[in-house]
């Protein structure tokens, strides 16, 4: 199996560009904004301003490229490592910070933004994407659902059930596996004996495609085709994106215990942002001033989101009882009273 590739690490094309230079610049800027958030969140965790954080540096092409192929009202069902994808589909940075600060308002997508809160358990969310897309079709709408997950999630039983349901009912679901090499410490070749994760699709009667996950154009292109299939009733697609997590699993992890520095450095040479920058330079669509302008805009956007998140007063002590049901039950009312009485 040869992974789909359009853009080489040196910025030259080995296939047809799926979008024009203006779109390439827009997606480049989005990847830069994503990485700015990622670095800021990691720094804030070290300062004690955020709880444990799961960095996604190196996976920006997977997240921005795939979401670029969605319609604004399509569903996105991702994980704790998919903040860039969620933001690009309309989820505010402020809420992503809030979630990591430990505030349930971080899980609230704005009205009209069909992005579910990040799944923290591994693998249980893909079946939700199946149900979401299926329900859209049953109600006569053509929204599709994109679900993001990692290589480790493919070992979960719920991966099998989600893929199987999607295949049987030809649901409008796009399964995008960001195979970043490790499930915490477990390397991909000990996660499954399958030669490629993409091969798993065969067992579910759907196409399985392997793609260079650090190639923005290739990711966009295969996702666009999968979205088109889903939207026209041809069913689900499984995409395995080969990428690499540059950072640790989370800010509590020491990745040096299970992988070599050389491996990280080697993957840095295939950086998804550098690759698009090289492409833009080759096509006279990049200069230092624009890069700086882009970085400054990203920095301003992220800082504004941090300020807004940190300015929000925490919930009151009894708010937890009001979030469980549409109307608090008798049990919620009693327990709220007990908390008020005794603290």
């Amino acid at each position, binding site marked *: 199996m040869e992974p789909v590739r359009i853009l080489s690490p040196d910025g030259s094309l080995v296939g047809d560009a799926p979008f024009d230079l203006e779109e390439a610049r827009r997606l480049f800027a989005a990847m830069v904004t994503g990485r700015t958030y990622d670095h800021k969140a990691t720094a804030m965790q070290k300062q004690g301003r955020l709880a444990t954080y799961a960095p996604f540096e190196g996976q920006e092409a997977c997240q921005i490229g795939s979401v670029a192929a969605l319609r604004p009202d399509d*569903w996105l*069902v991702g994980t704790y490592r998919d903040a860039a994808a969620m933001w690009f589909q309309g989820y505010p940075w402020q809420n992503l910070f809030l979630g990591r600060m430990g505030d*349930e*308002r971080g*899980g*609230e*997508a704005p*009205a009209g933004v069909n992005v*579910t*809160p990040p799944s923290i*358990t591994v693998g*249980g*969310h893909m*079946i*939700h*994407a*199946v*149900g*979401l*897309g*299926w*329900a*859209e079709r*049953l*109600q006569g709408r053509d929204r599709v*659902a994109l679900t993001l997950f990692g290589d480790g999630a493919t070992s979960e*039983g*719920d991966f099998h*059930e*989600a893929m*199987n*349901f999607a295949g*049987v009912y030809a649901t409008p679901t796009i399964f995008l596996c960001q195979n970043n090499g490790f499930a915490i410490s477990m390397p991909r070749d000990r996660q499954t004996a399958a030669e490629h994760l993409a091969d798993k699709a065969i067992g579910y009667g759907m196409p399985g495609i392997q793609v260079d996950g650090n190639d923005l154009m290739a990711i966009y292109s295969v996702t666009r085709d999968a979205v088109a299939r889903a939207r026209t009733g041809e069913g689900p697609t499984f995409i395995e994106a080969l990428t690499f997590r540059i950072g640790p699993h989370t800010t509590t992890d020491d990745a040096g215990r299970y992988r070599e520095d050389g491996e990280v450095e080697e993957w840095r040479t295939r950086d998804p942002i550098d690759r698009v920058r090289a492409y833009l330079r080759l096509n006279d669509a990049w200069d230092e001033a624009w890069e700086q302008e882009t970085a400054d805009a990203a920095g301003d956007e992220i800082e504004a989101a941090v300020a807004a998140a940190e300015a929000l007063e925490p919930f009151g002590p009894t708010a*937890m009882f009001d*979030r*469980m*049901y*549409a109307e608090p*039950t*008798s*049990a*919620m009312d*009693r327990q709220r009273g007990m908390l008020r009485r005794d603290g």
Partner: protein
Amino acid sequence: MAEMNMAQAINQALDLALAADDAVIVFGEDVGTTGGVFRVTDGLQETYGAERVIDAPVAESGIVGAALGMAIAGLKPVAEIQFLGFAYPAYDQIVSHVGRIRNRSNHRFTAPMVIRIPFGGGIGAAEHHSESAEAMLAHTPGVKVVVPSTPIDAKGLLLAAIEDPDPVIFLEPIRMYRALKQEVPDEHYTLPIGVAQTVREGVHASIVTYGSMVRASQRAADLLAEEGVSVEIVDLRTISPLDEDAIVATVRRTGRLVAVTEGHRTGNMASEIAAIAQEKALYSLLAPVERVTGWDTVVPLKRTEAHYVPGPERIAAAVRRTLGT
């Protein structure tokens, strides 16, 4: 008004819900073509088609997880799991996602869905078919757990569950599917979730129970009546949230409490009922609270199952102990 058993009453409730609201769908293993292993969904696929009464692959976690996605996207799925003993693979979806999506998304996404699950023993079925692990579900935040004991209640509670904006686990006592017929009103009606009902008034002792144990308790009360003992029976009808006021009120009326469940003894619903009685009505109690339960064993198979599931004699013995007779 027609005489029907609980299976027929549930079928009628599903029929009414499917007819009234296009968002309602029925979803589970064998619910369509065969009408379900207990024939509870019989005939519904013929009427509403395979896109609204959907046969699912054998995957309980997948059924509940997909139903959650459907509920978030605007449908009102009524999922069926064939037996409570087969629902354990779905517990992760229930505990980790169904009961949490509203909280996790701060009300943005909700799960207006029902999970129907036949449960309990007394029919001598194979292993895994007689489980009564409802306390595990009642222990789960974010879901309501409803258990009807009669055809009339089953219809009204199921319609209420389908219309509830939050997820409801609807546990159907297998033994009661065809054990009892009642005149059930033909039209749509609902019964409130979270509200118990006093199904027998009495003065000497109270039995608080639910599901198939209501009928066993009625029989115990009949035995005791012959001895001149007047027993009050409260049918909880919902085990989460519990109707604490009803539990406290009956204890205050009679001063003696027997809590009955066929669940395993440790950490079951009877334990919770007893705890409420001592917290809220200790000074009304004239005797220690008795719990009549299943045992902390695997439910025995057919030939000895009767020694596990509480029956009228075991319940009556507990009532007598509270009376010192």
